[in-house]
């Protein structure tokens, strides 16, 4: 007996063994169908005796083992059921012969046998036999179970008769010695009459009867017999049989205590009726019947003790190894039920040591597997896994000609739980569960290799990926290299993917995304470039806001809304435009990592990801990677993860599963598509960005101009998107406020461009913009040092320009050479402005979105001319005056300055010349007044500035000063140079005085002629253009003679006489009205006379407020001539 039955358990002792075998050719599946039906009859209750018979079926049993039938009767084959196919009556005799042959194999021990014949229809050659049953086919055999039951009953009858036969065998007859096969030769020549020998025979027979009783369902009797056998055998030191008797005692007790069985299978074994109503712990409610039983029955502790004893006796015999092993297994099962794992492990440890001689590889595998199972049973999962793994290794031992890689792999998979390893990376990444890394790595390596040898590289790839993903931190650099290399090798045959692999036994291997190759630290969605960012129309935005909540502000934020906000990103993406997501990644591997097809995984919106390939250097630091894609529909897009392909393994890494990734929200709104404009200009692009870079610009141009120059800038806008451009608005903003700017910097006419809308994709539109630079032309006084200052300035007051005030102290402290002063004036000023093109169209416009395109215009302004000093000189007429400008050429070229109705002035570089322009005084009242509405809301200072500006620009345009350098020409404005005093001089007084002599209007440079002796009428007319009523005034006319030598003679009482009063009175003059007063003079002598009309302030207090310049009355020059009549007379 060499092959142990590892499945044995204690309650098998009460079963009878029936072998079911096919005879002749029986299809395997048909046989097992019948076998299954037969085995369903595992327990038969005998009609008369209230006892149960348990049957153990085997379809394969070694006759060798059968020889141990006397030792333990449950090992004895007592029944045989043969299954055969018989096509025709002719074959029947042959079949019958075969059946008999088979019977002979177990012949010695058989109580009864049956033959089930399938396929034979109709005629049955022989007479009806009880041990043969005929069925037409395997499908048509309704009474198989019934037949088996009958068969079992017949076995029972034989068993019962044997039991009674042996039990009642009294000492009168000679008791035969029962022995095991290897003992037979030991007893040759032994004295059969000795007391010792007889006792031995008796003891063995008692034990045998005990076995029979147990089988026949008489537990109580069995216990009694076993006890007696133990006593008898102990006295004769028959250890093998003593062990068997003890084991029998244990088995019977186990059956008593644990009617549910110890095999762990709940199949069919119901609590025996013969034992009465037993509860699980073996104590019956009916205690009276228990007392007798309990006396003989072993307690749970005793069972183990006796098992130990029995096993120690078996251990004395080398040939009883199988018995010992099986006893160990049985004891372990009992202990497992008792939940005494420590003791069970000791039994198992012992079982491990039992040497059964040379085992075949298959037996070894079986042995390790069963050890593993038993360890599992007692909760030693690690030990169980260890043996399972050993079994797996045994499957592929080099001594085996055909290694069973499949079996090996299957067994290895079963060990996973023992090493607390789960092949789902999701479970692995959870929590701090780590397990025993060293053995886990080993196991994974073995799984990889086994699956490869199995011819399933897909599995290898999956396992290797898992190894890399979960054990990365534990692998050494060398191992990392090896693992990745082999992974690459495998994937060249079978690329790894994200599908779930299902093994034939139903185990599912979830996909392993390699989220650590590379490791992603953060995911950040990027806004579109400035020029492509969509903006919402203001009005529509407000509408949206108000519809969300009726409150302007509420501290109560709905939870969902709050969450939405944290996840949702402020900016928007546009359908059809390329969007970017920035990942910060790093490579944990000690070598360069190539990542291919890295793309985005999204949901919510149809998205076309544009994968990228990257190569990360070994153990790189954080490395930014930008992944791009194009949303194809509008809506909310959720960036759920990313896709990679590393070493041939494609992975979909979802951000939800990666808690270490920092992200500032992954949901962004995609709005419907908008047109896209590309801007090109006629001017070169600017290299340097605009200084106040608070706004990002799509592009900028730069140009260099002389102060006062005008340049045309042609802007071409091309629609490079796929939507029609429907609206276009242009605005500009000057962003440099340091320099004072006169006139409009950028001006354009949009009409023509707008008329071309809508602009189809691919078309373009042009827009011409005038860039006009007119900065302050005023210059500092330090230049005056170079000039011959003749003190012409009538004002005598400092010219107040901002620049001058800055420079003045410097001029005082340091005598400036012409060189240094020149550099001061040559410094280039810059002007910057931003043009914004607001455009929209397509579906995005319907939703109220538009786009901005901004163009920065950067102008370096080189100085051209400076007006270093300005002053006025009264002209000969009161309504005119001379404006004196000191013009300085700060350029390095010859420059020509011209003004309206004036001759040109040529200036050499750094030359300064005075230029006098005669101008009519200005009537600023004709300037448009700001409307009342605006006046109310702006502060007075600003209004004043505005007024000054308007006046200055009027003067400037009247003067029309232009300069010309070689081929450039531009304007020069005096706006900045003019100060209050000069302005006053240039202004027409609000009170307009007209003096009329002899009916002719008179002014300073006009000489009125009159005759001596004639009365000369003099009229003084006042027109009030001021806002208030003025007067009354008194005017006194004082005649005098100017000798042109500085002497003026006022003593002219005898030369000039007044007709009437020499004082005129003018009453109050209301605004816009006029008043005149008349008088007359009489010249008595010829000569040149001047009339000085003096103003006498009569109005109390009122006149004093009026400035003296308002009373600029012209002096009258009258030439009195000899009267011709007199001469004639």
């Amino acid at each position, binding site marked *: 007996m060499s092959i142990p039955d590892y499945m044995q358990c204690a309650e098998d002792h009460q079963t009878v063994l029936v072998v079911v075998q096919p005879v002749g050719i029986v299809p395997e599946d048909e046989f097992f169908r019948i076998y299954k039906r037969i085995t369903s009859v595992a327990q038969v209750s005998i009609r008369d005796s209230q006892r149960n018979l348990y049957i153990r079926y085997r379809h394969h049993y070694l006759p060798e083992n059968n020889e141990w039938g006397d030792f333990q009767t449950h090992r004895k084959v007592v029944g045989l059921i043969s299954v055969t196919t018989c096509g025709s009556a002719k074959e029947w005799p042959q079949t019958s012969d075969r059946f008999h042959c088979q019977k002979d194999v177990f012949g010695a021990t058989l109580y009864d046998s049956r033959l089930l014949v399938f396929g034979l229809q109709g005629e049955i050659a022989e007479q009806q036999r009880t041990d043969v049953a005929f069925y037409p086919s395997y499908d048509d055999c309704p009474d198989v179970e019934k037949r088996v039951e009958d068969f079992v009953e017949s076995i029972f009858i034989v068993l019962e008769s044997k039991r009674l036969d042996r039990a009642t065998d009294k000492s009168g007859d000679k008791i035969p010695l029962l022995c095991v096969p290897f003992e037979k030769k030991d007893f040759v020549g032994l004295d059969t009459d000795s007391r010792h020998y007889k006792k031995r025979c008796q003891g063995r027979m008692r034990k045998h009867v005990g076995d029979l009783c147990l089988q026949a369902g008489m537990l109580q009797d069995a216990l009694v017999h076993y006890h007696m056998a133990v006593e008898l055998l102990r006295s004769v030191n028959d250890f093998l049989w003593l062990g068997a008797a003890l084991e029998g005692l244990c088995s019977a007790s186990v059956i008593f205590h644990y009617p549910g069985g110890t095999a762990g299978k709940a199949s069919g074994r119901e609590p025996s009726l013969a034992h009465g109503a037993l509860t699980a712990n073996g104590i019956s409610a009916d205690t009276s019947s228990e007392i007798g039983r309990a006396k003989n029955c072993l307690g749970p502790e005793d069972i183990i003790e006796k098992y130990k004893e029995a096993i120690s006796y078996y251990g004395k015999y080398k040939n009883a190894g199988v018995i010992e092993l099986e006893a160990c297994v049985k004891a372990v099962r009992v202990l497992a039920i008792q939940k005494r794992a420590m003791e069970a492990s000791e039994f198992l440890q012992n079982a491990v040591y039992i040497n059964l001689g040379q085992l075949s590889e298959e037996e070894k595998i079986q042995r390790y597997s069963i050890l593993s199972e038993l360890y599992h049973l007692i909760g030693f999962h690690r030990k169980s896994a260890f043996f399972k793994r*050993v079994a797996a290794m045994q499957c592929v031992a080099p001594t085996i000609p055909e290694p069973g890689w499949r079996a090996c792999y299957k067994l290895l998979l079963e060990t996973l739980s023992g090493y607390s390893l789960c092949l789902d990376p999701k479970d692995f990444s959870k929590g701090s569960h780590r397990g025993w890394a060293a*053995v886990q790595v080993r196991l994974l390596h073995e799984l990889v290799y086994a699956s490869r040898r199995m011819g399933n590289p897909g599995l290898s790839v999956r396992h290797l990926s898992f190894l890399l993903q979960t054990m990365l931190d534990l692998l050494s650099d060398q191992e990392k290299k090896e693992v990745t290399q082999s992974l690459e*090798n495998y994937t060249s045959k079978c690329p790894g993917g994200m599908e779930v692999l299902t093994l034939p036994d139903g185990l599912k291997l979830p996909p392993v995304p390699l989220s650590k190759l590379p490791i992603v630290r953060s995911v950040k969605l990027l806004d579109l470039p400035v020029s492509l960012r969509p903006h919402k129309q203001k009005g529509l935005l407000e509408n949206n806001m108000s519809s969300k909540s009726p409150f302007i502000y509420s501290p109560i934020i709905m939870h969902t809304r709050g969450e939405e906000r944290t996840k949702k990103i402020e900016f928007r993406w546009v359908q059809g435009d390329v969007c970017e997501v920035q990942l910060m990644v790093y490579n944990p591997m000690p070598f360069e990592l190539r990542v291919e097809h890295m793309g985005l995984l999204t949901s919510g919106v149809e998205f076309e990801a544009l994968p990228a390939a990257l190569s990360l250097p070994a153990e790189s630091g954080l490395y930014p990677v930008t992944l791009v894609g194009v949303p194809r529909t509008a809506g909310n897009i959720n960036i759920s993860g990313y896709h990679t392909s590393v070493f041939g393994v494609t992975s979909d890494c979802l951000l939800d599963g990666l808690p270490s990734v920092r992200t500032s929200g992954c949901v962004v709104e995609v709005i419907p598509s908008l047109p896209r404009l590309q801007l090109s200009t006629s001017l070169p692009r600017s290299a340097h960005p605009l200084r106040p870079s608070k706004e990002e610009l799509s592009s900028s141009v730069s140009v260099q101009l002389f102060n006062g120059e005008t340049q045309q800038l042609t802007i071409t806008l091309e629609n490079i998107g796929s939507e029609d451009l429907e609206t276009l608005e242009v605005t500009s903003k000057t962003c440099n406020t340091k320099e004072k700017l006169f006139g409009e910097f950028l001006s354009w006419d949009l009409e023509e461009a707008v008329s071309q809308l809508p602009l189809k994709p691919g078309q373009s539109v042009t827009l011409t913009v005038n860039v006009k630079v007119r900065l302050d032309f005023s210059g500092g006084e330090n230049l005056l040092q170079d000039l011959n200052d003749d003190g012409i300035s009538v004002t005598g007051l400092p010219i107040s320009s901002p620049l001058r005030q800055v420079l003045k102290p410097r001029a005082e402290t340091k005598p400036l050479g012409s060189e240094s002063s020149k550099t001061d004036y040559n410094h280039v000023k810059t002007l910057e402005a931003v043009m914004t093109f607001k455009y929209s169209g397509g579906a995005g416009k319907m939703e109220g979105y538009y786009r901005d395109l901004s163009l920065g215009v950067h102008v370096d302004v080189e100085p051209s001319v400076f007006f270093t000093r300005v002053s006025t000189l009264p002209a000969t007429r009161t309504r005119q005056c001379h404006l004196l400008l000191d013009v300085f050429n700060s350029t390095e070229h010859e420059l020509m300055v011209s003004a309206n109705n004036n001759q040109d002035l040529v200036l050499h570089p750094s030359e300064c010349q005075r230029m006098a322009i005669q101008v009519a005084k200005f009537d600023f009242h004709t300037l448009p007044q700001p409307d009342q509405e605006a006046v109310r809301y702006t502060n007075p200072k600003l209004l004043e500035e505005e007024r000054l500006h308007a006046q200055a620009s009027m003067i400037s345009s009247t003067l029309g000063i232009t300069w010309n350098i070689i081929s450039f020409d531009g304007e020069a404005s005096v706006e900045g140079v003019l100060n209050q005093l000069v302005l006053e001089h240039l202004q027409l007084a609000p009170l307009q005085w007209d003096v009329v002599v002899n009916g002719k209007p008179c002014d300073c440079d006009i000489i009125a002629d009159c005759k001596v002796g004639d009365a000369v009428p003099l009229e003084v007319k006042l027109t009030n253009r001021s806002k208030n009523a003025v007067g009354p005034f008194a005017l006194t006319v004082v005649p005098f003679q100017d000798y042109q030598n500085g002497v003026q003679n006022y003593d002219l009482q005898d030369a000039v006489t007044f007709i009437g009063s020499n004082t005129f009175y003018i009453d109050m003059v209301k605004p816009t009205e006029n008043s005149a007063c008349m008088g007359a003079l009489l010249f008595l002598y010829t000569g040149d006379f001047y009339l000085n009309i003096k103003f006498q302030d009569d109005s109390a207090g009122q006149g004093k407020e009026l400035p003296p310049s308002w009373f600029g009355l012209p002096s009258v020059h009258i030439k009195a001539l000899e009267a011709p009549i007199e001469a004639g007379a």
Partner: protein
Amino acid sequence: MLTRLKTQVPLFSMNSYTKLREKLKLSGLSLASTHSHVIRLGRHSRHNSKMAVCIAVIAKENYPLFIRSVPVQNELKFHYTVHTSLDVVEEKISAVGKAMADQRELYLGLLYPTEDYKVYGYVTNSKVKFVIVVDSSNTSLRDNEIRSMFRKLHNSFTDVMCNPFYNPGDTIQSKAFDSIVSAMMVQAS
């Protein structure tokens, strides 16, 4: 390509069978009587009384914090030995029962003997396990000596835990602890 492939996969190399056999040996599975005879011979030659052949510290969650063995070349074997011994440790702890947990003795005694080694266990109150594997031929080691070894180990481990720079749950890399362990593994004589 083919040659590369072969060299790259050292998982089941030629000596895998010998390794396997060693594993069996350690778990006491003698393949045949002849083998066990060989082993017995080997055991005599090894009879030189190293105090411990393997010392391991295992975290509460049953992963190794520290493991060191004397025959360095066959470390994995001890990994398996110690790993499987955890079954017994757990069983012993749970056998004591909840109520008695406070008074439980930390020393667990012999966990299980194998053909070549004896495995002893010790569990701190915070469920950190110490396992010492000694050569089963080393009869000079008494239970008391094993106990004192565990006590020394425990003290040193406490020092490690007191280190503010040590992160509980990380593998132990303390030099002081290492030297204590080394002292236990050197020859006793």
